[in-house]
């Protein structure tokens, strides 16, 4: 191993990211070469001292001042209220429920009461704590309640 090669390997070796065989070769070189040995000491010594630099304590109130700046950056609360993206997202569950109701009311499954079916599914959604209705692709002729596990005890519809 040459001195140039050894010099390039010192830092990675101190990081612990050197193959064992390479590390052995490097150590053998350092044992024979006083200059490179001195270099490795220099690199290690300075790394240690700099890493031990006592950290400053941030001034009192730093976090509060930063939070205030970020809050000012985000804008006033009323802006959120008129931000159509924010409040429209909140309407998704309601929109899904309305769409589902429209589908069910318009084309009730044979043998089932569309109103009863709608009530059962909405009730099921709230019992599970899930206000987002899952719209399942279904044929109006299929028993939707059975697909959803018949949570309210409704009997399967007859075709």
């Amino acid at each position, binding site marked *: 191993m040459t001195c140039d090669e050894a010099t390039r390997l010192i830092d990675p070796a101190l990081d612990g990211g050197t193959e064992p065989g390479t590390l052995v070769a490097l150590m053998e070189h350092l*044992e024979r070469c006083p200059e490179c040995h001195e270099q490795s000491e220099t690199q290690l010594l300075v790394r240690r001292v*700099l890493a031990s630099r006592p950290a400053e304590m941030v001034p009192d109130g730093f976090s509060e001042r930063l939070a205030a700046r970020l809050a000012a950056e985000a804008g006033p609360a009323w802006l959120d209220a008129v931000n159509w993206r924010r409040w429209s997202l909140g309407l998704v569950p309601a929109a899904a429920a309305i769409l589902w109701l429209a589908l069910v009311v318009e084309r009730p499954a044979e043998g089932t009461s569309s109103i009863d079916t709608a009530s059962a599914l909405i009730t099921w959604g709230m019992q599970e704590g899930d206000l987002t209705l899952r719209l399942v692709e279904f044929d109006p002729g299929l028993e939707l309640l059975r697909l959803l596990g018949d949570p309210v005890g409704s009997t399967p519809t007859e075709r």
Partner: protein
Amino acid sequence: MYALARVLTGGDADAEDLVQETFVRAFRAISRFRRESSFRTWLHRIAVNVVKSHVARRGRRVETSALREDGEHVESLLDRMPSDEDLETAVVRRQSIDRALGTLSDEVRLLITLRDVQGLEYHEIATVTGLPIGTVESRVFRARQRLRPMLEPLLDRGCKGVLRRRALPRPVSQGSFG
């Protein structure tokens, strides 16, 4: 971040503002963070740009003198440190290190601060600064050579003995050297 700003600006009293500006810019740009680098690297890049802009506006090379802990700051530190002696030791040590770092050029001080104080990897520093990895490695290597005489007194005598015997980690199959 605060330590980085203090070192790079030579203890500038604006360091707090610079750190806040860093986080504000990160907040504004977070939607553009593409994960091409780590978040740490991305944040450091912003911090370095903020400091460089500050130094450029000041229109001078940053001279690092013994860091001045303003009176108000020291008082709050006293409230939080275990003892006056601990505070004094920490401040003196930090000032000694920063005085040594101040002898380096702005760019080299940035590189070695990112590497040895902040702990960034070479590839991260290359991303932050836009320099080739080899350039970063060689400049940090030479900077350490220059800093050794100034920093050697800060190393514990006990550690120095260990340093001579164990400059490198021992491989499993070999004994120690030196």
